[in-house]
C-alpha cells in the first residue's frame, strides 16, 4: 500500500460533562488510502461522529483532542495552528452532514451557499462561480434552474445531493460523509449512494462514509473501519471484512443488518445488550459484556493483532477468528451471551 492520504494514530477525543470526562474516542488508529471509499461503521454512540468531526477540528465546545496524530498529506492536523487548519478546511477536507435540511442555511438560496464557498474559499470570480455551480448541479443530477431555490424547496434526497455538490465544490482530497443517507428511504438511499460512488471513482477523491448500517458499507465501500465504544475493533478491505470478519463485534454486526442489495439474507440477529457508558467503560475488552466468545483473559486490555496484512484486529482471540466465524454464523450463539 502506498503512502495513505490520511493516517490516524492513537486519536483521543474527550467531552467534558460537569467534572467528568467522556472519552468518546479512546486511542483510534486507521488509514485512509488515496482514492478509496472507507466505511466508518459502528453502533450509535461509539464515537464515529466524534472521529469525523475531529478530522475537521470543528468540535463541540466541551470537546478536546487530547492525544494522537491525524497525519494528512504530510501534516499533523492535531497540531497545526488554527490558521493553517482553516486554510485546509473545505479546500482539502469537505463534509457531508446527515441532515442537509439543518445544515443548509434556511435564509439563503442554494446558489448563494455554493457561491459563498466558491468565492470566499475558492477564490473564484462571480462568473466562474456561477459556471462551477451549474457544473456541480449537473454532476449531482439536479436541474440548474433550481440553483435559485431555497433549501426548504427541495426534497430530502435532493437536499442531500445539494450537500454532495457543496462538498465537491473545491475539489477536495477527502470528503467525510456523516450518515449521508440515514434519513432517507431505502430507494433514495441507493440512488444517492450510487451517485456518490460514481463521483468518487470518477474524481478519484477519498471518502470516509460514516454509518451505523453495515449494509451501506458493504454496498459501496472498498474498505471499512469498525468502531466499538471509542476504539477501532477491526479495519481493512471490504473483501476481508465480508469474507473474514475477525472481531466478534463485526461478526455480530453482519448478522444484525439486512442486505441493501435486496438479497435475502436470512434471519436478522441483533447483538444483545447496549454499548458501555463511555464515562466509565469496563476494564479490558469493552465488548466483553456482550461478546459470546469472552474468556477470562478478556478482562485485560486486548492487543492489536494483524490477522493478515492490512487487517488489524483488537481482540484476544483474533487468531482463532476462523473458528469463531463458524460459531458466529449460528443464531443461538447470540441468544445467550456468555
Amino acid at each position: 500500500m502506498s503512502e495513505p492520504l490520511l493516517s490516524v494514530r492513537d486519536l483521543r477525543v474527550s467531552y467534558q460533562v460537569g467534572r467528568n470526562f467522556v472519552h468518546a474516542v479512546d486511542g483510534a488508529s486507521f488509514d485512509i488510502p488515496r482514492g478509496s471509499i472507507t466505511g466508518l461503521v459502528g453502533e450509535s454512540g461509539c464515537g464515529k461522529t466524534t472521529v469525523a468531526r475531529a478530522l475537521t477540528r470543528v468540535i463541540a465546545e466541551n470537546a478536546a483532542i487530547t492525544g494522537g496524530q491525524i497525519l494528512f498529506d504530510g501534516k499533523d492536523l492535531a497540531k497545526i495552528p488554527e490558521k493553517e487548519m482553516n486554510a485546509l478546511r473545505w479546500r482539502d477536507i469537505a463534509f457531508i452532514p446527515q441532515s442537509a435540511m439543518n445544515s443548509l442555511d434556511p435564509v439563503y438560496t442554494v446558489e448563494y451557499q455554493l457561491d459563498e464557498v466558491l468565492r470566499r474559499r475558492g477564490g473564484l470570480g462571480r462568473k466562474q462561480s456561477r459556471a462551477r455551480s451549474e457544473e456541480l448541479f449537473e454532476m449531482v443530477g439536479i436541474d440548474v434552474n433550481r440553483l435559485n431555490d431555497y433549501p426548504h424547496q427541495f426534497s430530502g434526497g435532493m437536499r442531500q445531493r445539494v450537500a454532495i455538490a457543496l462538498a465537491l465544490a473545491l475539489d477536495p482530497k477527502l470528503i467525510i460523509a456523516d450518515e449521508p443517507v440515514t434519513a432517507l428511504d431505502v430507494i433514495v438511499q441507493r440512488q444517492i449512494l450510487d451517485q456518490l460512488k460514481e463521483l468518487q471513482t470518477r474524481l478519484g477523491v477519498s471518502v470516509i462514509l460514516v454509518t451505523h448500517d453495515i449494509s451501506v458499507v458493504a454496498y459501496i465501500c472498498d474498505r471499512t473501519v469498525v468502531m466499538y465504544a471509542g476504539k477501532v475493533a477491526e479495519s481493512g478491505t471490504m473483501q476481508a471484512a465480508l469474507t473474514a470478519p475477525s472481531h466478534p463485534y463485526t461478526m455480530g454486526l453482519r448478522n444484525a443488518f439486512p442486505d441493501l442489495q435486496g438479497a435475502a439474507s436470512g434471519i436478522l440477529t441483533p447483538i444483545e445488550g447496549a454499548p458501555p457508558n463511555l464515562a466509565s467503560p469496563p476494564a479490558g475488552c469493552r465488548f466483553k459484556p456482550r461478546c459470546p466468545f469472552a474468556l477470562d483473559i478478556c478482562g485485560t486490555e486486548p492487543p492489536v493483532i494483524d490477522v493478515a496484512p492490512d487487517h488489524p484486529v483488537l481482540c484476544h482471540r483474533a487468531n482463532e477468528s476462523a473458528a469463531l466465524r463458524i460459531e458466529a454464523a449460528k443464531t443461538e450463539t447470540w441468544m445467550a451471551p456468555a
Partner: protein
Amino acid sequence: MKNFKAVGSRLLQLALVLWAVVTILFLMFRLMPGNPMAAYIDPTFTLEQQQQLMAQFGLDKPLWHQYLIYLGNLLQGELGQSFRYREPVGQRIWILLPNTLILTFSSLIVAYVFGILAGAYLAWRRGSWVEQAAIPLVLTTRAMPEFWLGMVMLAIFSFSLGWLPAGGTRAPGNEYSGFLDLYTSRDFLAHLALPAATLAIYSQGLPLLLMRSNMLDVMKEDFVTMARIKGLSNWTVVVRHAARNALLPVMTSFAIAVGYQLQGNVVVESVFSWPGLGRELVNAVAASDYPLAQGAFLMIALVVIFMNLAADLLYAFLDPRISHA
C-alpha cells in the same frame, strides 16, 4: 400568486379588525352612563353649535342610524369637535400624531439598533466578563420605572448640566413655517433628545435579550457548525449566518413594540410635557373631552393594527420559508 392571496386575506383580516375597533368605540361612548349626547356635545357649546352637531351625528335618530352616520363620518375623517380646544378633533390629532410617531420611532430605532448589535456581541462573547457585567445592567434598565428614569435624565442633563431643554418640542417664542421646518430644526431635536433617550434606554433591553438568546440558539444550529467546517471567517459565520437568522424574530418584535410603545408613551410624554397622542388621550379622558379621547384612541388603535400587519409582511419578506413556500 400564493403570495398575493396571503396578502389579500391578511388585508381583509385587517379591515375586519378595524371595523371591530370602530364599532366598539361607537358602543363604548354611547353606552357609557349618562347622556349619550355627551359624547359629542358639550353643554357649554352655543345652542347653534349644539344643533349643528346634533344633525351632523344624528343624535336624535335611532342607534342603528347613528351608527351608519358615524361610519360615514369616519370615512370622511370627521371625528367631531373637541370640547376643550373648540376645534375639530381631526385637526388636533393631526398636530399631535407626528410628535408621537417621531418620539416612538426615533427611540425604538435607537433601541433596536443598539440592542441588536449589543445582543449579538454578548452572544458571541458568551461567558466573558463583559457578558457577566452587561446582563445585570440590562436587567436593571428593564426594571427601572419610566417616569423615574425620565426624572433622573431631566435632573442630570437639564437641571444640573443645563445641556438640554426640560420639556415641550420647541423653545418659547420660536415659530416654524411648517412640519418639516420644525422637525428638522436643532431646537426640536434638542427637545427630542431627552424623552427619546429615556424611552430608548427603557426599550433596548427587549431587543438585546431577544437577540442574544436567539443568537445562542442559532449558534447551535447545524448550518452554523457547517459554516465553520467550510472554513468561512468568523465574521461570516457570526454575522451572515448566525445573526441573520437570529434577527428574524427581533425584527418582528420591532413592529409589535411600536404598538406597545404608543401606549407606554403616556408616562414619558407627561414627564417631558411632550405634546403627543398618549398624553392628550389621558388629559382628554380626565377632562371628559370624549370626542378627542375617542379620536386619539382610534388613532392609536390604527397604528397598532397597521404595525402588526407590517410585522407579518416584514417576517414574510425576511424569511424565505414563508415568502417562497
